[in-house]
């Protein structure tokens, strides 16, 4: 087993455990902190896949902004989830069964993919990748429409969230 595989296994176990703890821990603030651990694990996975830019983005946006937003949202709630109520819904076995079936289907599908057993390809240095990504992002034959639509999506998210937040504040006053 190569060093990279050892790193992958450790990171995968930590990420999965943190992911389970996000839904299993009884205090919402602990869930948010476990979520940061999960996102950090995903960032390390990106790094092992030589997607350095996405590893940085994962830390910067997901941990630096989204987790903070979630924690601020938790701080807004007056009454945090009841610590006595049961966390498992009735009929939990049905979603569990669906998840297992979906996982089996995806794993089966991936196993038929010829590169599944293959090794990682060495990519050129990161700067060239990033420049190619940037060129493709604004290329009319590439991803310029998703690029501009992303801007409108962000605008809609910003306007909608400010509308909701400020509306509630005016009502409270």
């Amino acid at each position, binding site marked *: 087993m190569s060093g990279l595989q050892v790193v992958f296994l450790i990171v995968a176990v930590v990420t999965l455990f943190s992911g389970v703890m996000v839904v299993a821990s009884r205090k919402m603030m602990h869930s948010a902190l476990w979520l940061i651990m999960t996102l950090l694990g995903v960032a390390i996975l990106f790094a092992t896949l*030589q997607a350095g830019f996405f590893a940085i983005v994962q830390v910067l946006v997901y941990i630096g902004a*989204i987790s903070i937003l979630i924690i601020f949202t938790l701080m807004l*709630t007056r009454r945090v989830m009841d610590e006595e109520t049961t966390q498992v819904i009735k009929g939990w076995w049905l979603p569990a069964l669906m998840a297992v079936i979906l996982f089996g289907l995806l794993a089966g599908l991936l196993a038929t993919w010829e590169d599944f057993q293959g090794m990682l390809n060495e990519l050129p240095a990161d700067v060239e990748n990033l420049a190619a990504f940037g060129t493709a992002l604004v290329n009319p034959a590439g991803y310029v429409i998703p690029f501009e639509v992303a*801007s409108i999506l*962000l605008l809609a998210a910003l306007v909608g969230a*400010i509308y909701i937040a*400020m509306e509630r504040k005016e009502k409270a006053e």
Partner: protein
Amino acid sequence: MLNDWLYVGIFALVSMFLPAAAISIAALLSPRKPNSVKNATYECGMETVGPAWVQMKVQYYVFALVFLVFDVEAVLLFPWAVAYKQLPLYAVVEAILFILILLGGLLYAWRKGALEWR
């Protein structure tokens, strides 16, 4: 390339180990004689006033959200900036359009008073 990340990993491990060592050595070596005054909750050396779980101002949420939106904008503009010298003029105009659309959001936030601390 991956070896560069190894340094980051070693650095992260060391940075996790140092505080963990400080805390665990203190926990192992320190004498423990608890009494009710020592175990009392305090904040910044003072006795606490009221419950700890108070509702925070909504401004924290709005600020974090505006930050998130412009963080994502910066992430999307970063590859474009890296490729800047290879790009034709219309590509630069496209990115300016991208910024202008989001500038509308900033203006909206500004007009709505979301950027003010009240």
